[in-house]
């Protein structure tokens, strides 16, 4: 390769002489001062509660609205906002309308740091609601704790949200991955006894906690082959190939939706058709069939778990309610599990606001959640108490038949430790007539 003398860039000629630097320096400082001026500060906050006035309460969230993780999850926050619109149209809670600020972090923890600080320091929100992502949210726990911001109903099943002594203001929502693993394993033990069970999990807390739960029930030798995947490597051929070679008959997937679809598709190409048992995180039928396209018939017979009303069962009064709200306030977006999830979160938050009373404070809402006793659309019980901040504590099995995904069998509940997996007999209550929890 002939190397020609490198041409000079006209821009690089001027040595950094003093006059230009001083002017540049001065202008830079001036710019920063200008930004500071319009930054607007009322750090003389006084005794008022941040984010709360007589007519409004402001909460914020961080969600992946863009980027590879946004598929599906980007629909959650708009659904919650739509539910809040319903509540606001009926006068709000104790006369306060709910304003929901949705910030995009692209599933990147560095962005989460920025937007959460913006919400707390700049927008002065009352609380953070339903922050999504294990890795993204872990990074802001310390900041929220030291600023005493209520951190409600984190959208992830990690056990990190259940640390009341370290993070007294943080509460989970999703059932823990370990709880889920135990329930999946219990079902496998009862219905697929003697068959070879294998496990594919994401290489982080999600996959690890799921496997922990599975092995608590099946025992340390119960899983014949264990494989991991990373979201940066979209080829699971080697892992699925290993399962096929090991003769797996049941495969447990602790995967996000793109990788659930990828695993099922790859297995079909290799001529390998085990019984798929999938985590709630990656099992939404509509999302998966969208990803698989023409191959969506491969989902037939897929087993999974869920804890919220089924979006397919329009006889369920909660589903009907959420669909109504979706049509009216969310521009009739495609109605799937993410919409149901978002509205369930909204419903629980409104219940907490009501329980906290007219004199709304940050300590007040934390106490209200800890008091617990909320009953809503969830199938499983909520475990909130003074020393349990984890959230939902159970699941019900689902199965894909044709083009629906329906619940069957009993609801199971358990804890994240070594407690047994029991059946839970209580049914969800009927929703209120206007869709808003009774005060």
């Amino acid at each position, binding site marked *: 390769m002939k*190397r020609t*003398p*490198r041409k*000079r*860039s*006209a*821009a*690089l*000629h*001027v*040595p*950094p002489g*003093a*006059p*230009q*630097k*001083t002017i*540049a*320096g001065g*202008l*830079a*400082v001036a710019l*920063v*001062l200008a*930004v*500071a001026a319009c*930054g*607007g*500060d009322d*750090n003389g906050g006084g005794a008022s509660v941040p984010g709360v006035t007589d007519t409004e309460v402001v909460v914020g969230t961080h969600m992946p*609205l*863009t*980027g590879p993780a946004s598929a599906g999850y*980007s629909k959650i926050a*708009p659904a919650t906002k739509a539910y809040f619109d319903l509540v606001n149209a009926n006068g709000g809670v104790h006369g306060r309308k709910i304003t929901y600020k949705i*910030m*995009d972090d692209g*599933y*990147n*923890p*560095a962005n989460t*740091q*920025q937007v959460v*600080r*913006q919400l707390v*320091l*700049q927008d002065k929100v009352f609380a953070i609601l339903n922050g999504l992502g*294990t*890795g993204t949210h*872990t*990074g802001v726990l*310390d*900041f929220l704790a*030291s600023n005493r911001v209520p951190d409600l109903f984190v959208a992830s099943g990690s056990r990190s949200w259940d640390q009341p002594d370290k993070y007294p203001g943080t509460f989970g929502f999703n059932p823990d991955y370990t709880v889920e693993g135990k329930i999946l394993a219990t079902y496998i033990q009862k219905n697929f006894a003697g068959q070879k069970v294998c496990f594919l999990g994401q*290489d*982080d807390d999600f996959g690890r906690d799921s496997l922990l739960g599975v092995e608590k029930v099946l025992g340390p030798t119960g899983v014949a082959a264990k494989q991991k995947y*990373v979201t*940066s490597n979209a080829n699971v051929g080697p892992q699925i190939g290993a399962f096929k070679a090991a003769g797996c008959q049941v495969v447990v997937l602790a995967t996000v939706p793109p990788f659930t679809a990828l695993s099922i598709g790859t297995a079909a190409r290799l001529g390998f058709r085990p019984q798929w048992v999938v985590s709630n995180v990656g099992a939404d039928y509509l999302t998966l069939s969208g990803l698989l396209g023409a191959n969506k018939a491969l989902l037939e017979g897929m087993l999974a778990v869920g804890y919220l009303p089924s979006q397919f069962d329009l006889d369920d009064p909660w589903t009907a309610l959420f669909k109504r709200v979706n049509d009216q306030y969310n*521009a009739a*977006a495609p109605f799937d599990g993410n919409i149901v999830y978002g509205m369930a979160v909204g419903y629980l938050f409104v219940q907490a606001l009501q329980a906290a009373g007219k004199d709304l404070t940050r300590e007040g809402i934390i106490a209200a959640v800890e008091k617990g006793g909320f009953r809503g659309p969830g199938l499983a019980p909520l475990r909130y108490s003074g020393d349990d901040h984890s959230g939902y504590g159970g699941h019900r099995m689902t199965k894909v038949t044709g083009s629906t995904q329906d619940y069957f069998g009993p609801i199971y509940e358990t804890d994240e430790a070594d407690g047994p997996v029991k059946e839970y007999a209580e049914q969800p209550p009927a929703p209120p007539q206007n869709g808003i929890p009774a005060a």
Partner: protein
Amino acid sequence: MRSTVVRHLALTLAAAAALLALTYGLAPFRDYQLATAAAYLCVTAGLTVLTGLSGQLSLGHGALMATGAYPVALAQNEFRDRDISGGWVLPLSLAIGVAAALVAGLVVGLAAARLRGPYLAGVTLAVAVIVPALTTAFDSVFNGDQGLSVYIEPPPLSLGATFPYERWQAWIALTGALLTMFLLANLVRSRYGRHFRAVRDDEVAARLAGIDVARTQVLAFVVSAACAGLGGGLLAVLAQSVSPGAFSLTLSLFLVMAVVIGGLGRLAGAVWGAVLLVLLPEASHSLTEALSLSPAAAQRLDGNLPLAIFGTTLVVVMLLAPGGVQGLLARAARRLHPRQDHREVGTP
């Protein structure tokens, strides 16, 4: 040369005083943004020296930031586990991070010294993608995609119980940035700075003049890597966490673009670049909010609009003003101060 150092020292101290006053005047969130810009400034300053003055394109500086950030996280957590504390702990951790980045810069620099043009770009691109992925390869230490949280001691009690944490963060970051700028300004005006420019402009002539080309190239890489490591370490302190997603390929590319828009080869341009990296996402988000669209449309635009704006700005600036913001300012300054610097060769 000595007068140059003294002059730079005076400028640095004056800037320090001004910035100190500024941190008292700003709201906490703006202090945090100032701190973030200061951390980015360490990186952009080193990168502009490497790419502008030494002519070596690096598309992997985000990864070099990670090689500084992770050791800081591990060191801070280790000190905390052993109950060691004190004012010297954080500077020591940062020094460890800089040292690690220096070694990484040496390795990459040695591999890159023999490469030119697209091959160099290719190696740095691979570094940008692969080094963060190493955190998943050795996830017992680095905890994979989830990353590590970084323990930082609260501000010393001597400052008062109500001292805003963000102001303390700004002080830490600004100290690092001022130190970096001071050292780089001296380096650029020294013999080594002249060697950088000589090798960039005409390698054959530089070699004939007795300059060791490979060593000069490697030195530039090592210096800029150390600066990137410091910047990464400071970001770890500010965010109180490290994760591979924070040092992705996108960040590496944004750094190059920020440096070019600010003005390649000029330290003042690095300042503009750092400011841009912090302000542009927020400005785009405010613009999207101000348009008050329907939820579905806003969802499409939010996130995508800043990217579109950044990309368009980049293209436009490169086509119309290759000297960047600082180049435009320099041209304007020259028009105001007609006395010429007789050392200049070839005005644009």
